[in-house]
């Protein structure tokens, strides 16, 4: 008890210091201090959440899905302890718990834990949290230099969730759906809408071969990367029938999307099919917890974009920020932008720091070709600006429509000055943090670390 109290006190002191210094990166530091002092802090504090906790992991959409779940659960009177700033390794989760601690960790300000967890940390963090339910949304290739091959993550996850109760799984992702094989009564969600189907698997598709026997899947519909309706003609493994289903999907550019959730219309204030998937995951999770359908729908309809995920700011020009970090996510952003019309002005910011992945080869796996016909001008910025500019050139954009400005702040200003109307910014993760820091300093955006 003394160690926990000391750890919580130290974590709170570090958190206050970081906020006073105006440093945004401090969201995982207090938790690191806490777990240094008391290695079991997450387990001990999470045990005080009266209504338990839930965990969300995926390659793409963790932060947005958690924001949706938060919006829904708040309607049920839940007081959330939530790592909402997106710091999702053990440190970030411990920080959220430390922040909610009172009386040296004897009490918490909330009664329900909602944690998004990095794919790599799912095992360690789950062992401590013992979640009531675990939502696994998707697996795509991402940061191969950090995570390694996708199959390795899938194998790790399979070990972690074997026999686990309370699994909520994406039926349309064969890698994720197969995780339910040994679990008691997993809940599946998925999309069922023929009009959305793509003509073929996208280039960035990762899981084309059966998890069980290695034979190529056949798809009767492909919705997004390797998500769709699949079946293995060799061993018969196929998409499980979901109980939470999205139909009649309507996509309206970067503004919003609508779909029927088990037959009831949802007007989602977030764009793109990827957010429909996030919403279906959030719905399946909360329905499995016993939340009423009307609360689920009201919560989804009230959600606000998470930081940098299709968020629009007024910078003289209406400027929308859309995070891109891997081919599957980028493709969905590009597909959504292509619905915005013609003559778009874009600022792409490609960094190669550790949190982005040092390896920038993924930009060649994303389908920038989708946008080429719709771009008026493309400004490339960031530590690997030239690589992104080159990608646009080889996607087919004329050289005189491309400018390179390495420095992010100068790049932003150059892009804002050149033209009028909306500007679309597609930054990688650390580039988004950089932009946010610039905009906060200029008083044009709210501080994100809260």
């Amino acid at each position, binding site marked *: 008890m003394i160690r926990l109290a000391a750890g919580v006190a130290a974590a709170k002191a570090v958190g206050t210091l970081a906020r006073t210094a105006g440093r945004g990166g401090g969201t995982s530091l207090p938790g690191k201090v806490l777990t240094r002092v008391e290695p079991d802090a997450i387990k001990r504090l999470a045990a005080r959440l009266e209504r338990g906790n839930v965990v969300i992991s995926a390659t793409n959409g963790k932060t947005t899905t958690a924001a949706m779940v938060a919006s829904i659960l708040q309607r049920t009177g839940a007081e959330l302890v939530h790592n909402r700033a997106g710091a999702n390794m053990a440190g970030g989760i411990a920080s959220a718990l430390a922040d909610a601690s009172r009386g040296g960790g004897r009490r918490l300000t909330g009664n329900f834990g909602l944690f998004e967890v990095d794919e790599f940390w799912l095992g360690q963090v789950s062992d401590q949290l013992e979640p009531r339910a675990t939502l696994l949304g998707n697996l795509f290739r991402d940061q191969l*230099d950090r995570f390694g091959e996708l199959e390795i993550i899938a194998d790790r996850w399979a070990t972690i969730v074997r026999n686990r109760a309370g699994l909520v799984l994406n039926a349309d992702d064969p890698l994720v759906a197969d995780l339910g094989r040994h679990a008691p009564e997993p809940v599946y969600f998925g999309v069922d809408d023929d009009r959305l189907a793509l003509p073929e698997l996208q280039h960035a598709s990762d899981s084309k*071969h059966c998890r069980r026997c*290695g034979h190529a899947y056949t798809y009767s519909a492909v919705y997004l990367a390797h998500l769709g309706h699949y079946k293995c003609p060799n061993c018969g493994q196929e998409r499980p029938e979901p109980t939470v289903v999205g139909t009649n999907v309507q996509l309206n550019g970067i503004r919003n999307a609508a779909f029927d959730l088990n037959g009831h219309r949802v007007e989602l204030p977030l764009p793109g099919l990827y957010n429909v998937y996030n919403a279906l995951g959030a719905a399946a999770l909360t329905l499995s917890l016993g939340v009423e359908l009307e609360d689920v729908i009201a919560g989804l309809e009230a959600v606000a974009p998470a930081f940098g995920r299709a968020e629009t700011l007024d910078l003289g020009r209406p400027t929308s920020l859309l995070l891109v970090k891997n081919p599957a996510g980028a493709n969905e952003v590009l597909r959504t932008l292509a619905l915005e019309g013609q003559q778009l002005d874009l600022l792409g910011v490609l960094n190669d720091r550790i949190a982005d992945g040092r*390896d920038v*080869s993924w930009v*060649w796996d994303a389908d920038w070709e989708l946008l080429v016909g719709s771009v008026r001008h493309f400004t490339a910025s960031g530590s690997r600006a030239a690589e992104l500019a080159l990608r646009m050139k080889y996607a087919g954009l004329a050289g005189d429509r491309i400018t390179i400005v390495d420095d992010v702040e100068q790049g932003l200003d150059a892009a804002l000055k050149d033209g009028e109307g909306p500007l679309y910014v597609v930054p990688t993760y650390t580039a988004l943090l950089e932009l946010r820091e610039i905009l906060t300093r200029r008083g044009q955006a709210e501080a994100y670390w809260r």
Partner: protein
Amino acid sequence: MADVLRVCALYPDLMNIYADRGNLQLLRKRCEWRGLGFELSGVGLDDPLDPDAHDLFYVGGGQDRDQALCAEDMATNKRDALHKAADDGKVIFAVCGGYQLLGHSYDLDGTKLPGVGLVDLETVREEGPRLIGNVAIEVTLDDTPQVLAGFENHGGRTRLGADTRPLGRVLKGHGNDGRSGFEGARGGARGTVVGTYLHGPLLPKNAWFADWLTATALHRTVSELGVLDDRLEDAAHAAARRAAGI
């Protein structure tokens, strides 16, 4: 002189993990801009491979499971065709997992994947971390040393046979095995078989090398291909070198 570059990608659905299509896109666009034709075909598992129907054969990298499927197929169904192509001076360009399969074998913790034996080398996965990071090597293809910059990410350590020529000398990064100071390999009767761990993808950041491959495959000199506006290519090359620290 042929005026169409006929490229054959081996296992494009399985061996494509490190943006290998970027390499193919480079070759395609640069042919188009020069008024040369470009044909791309793919061969998969069990497909026959015609050594005479293509000028350049490309093999990319894949996940372990996919690489194992391809290794078996390549050694069984495509070995003879690849040897004939190499003997005829066709270009065979293999990256990462594809490079490993050019040798005799790839030993993964006791499981041995067969190679096609085009180059005297073998690869072993050892204890110890994967070799990951930005990398730059010095390559001498004709007379002048030039730099290739890219990214490497491999668990296997590749050892070259006593008479095997490396592709280059490591300036920054790990290279074949993290110790020898060499990266990649060249082989074939006419030196037209090239393997390397460099992806990123390699050719966009090293357009000069893409042009060497194209020229060699078409039996021309690079200068005969003609000059393109390579300002963005040069900027990307410079950025990749900076990332590697040279």
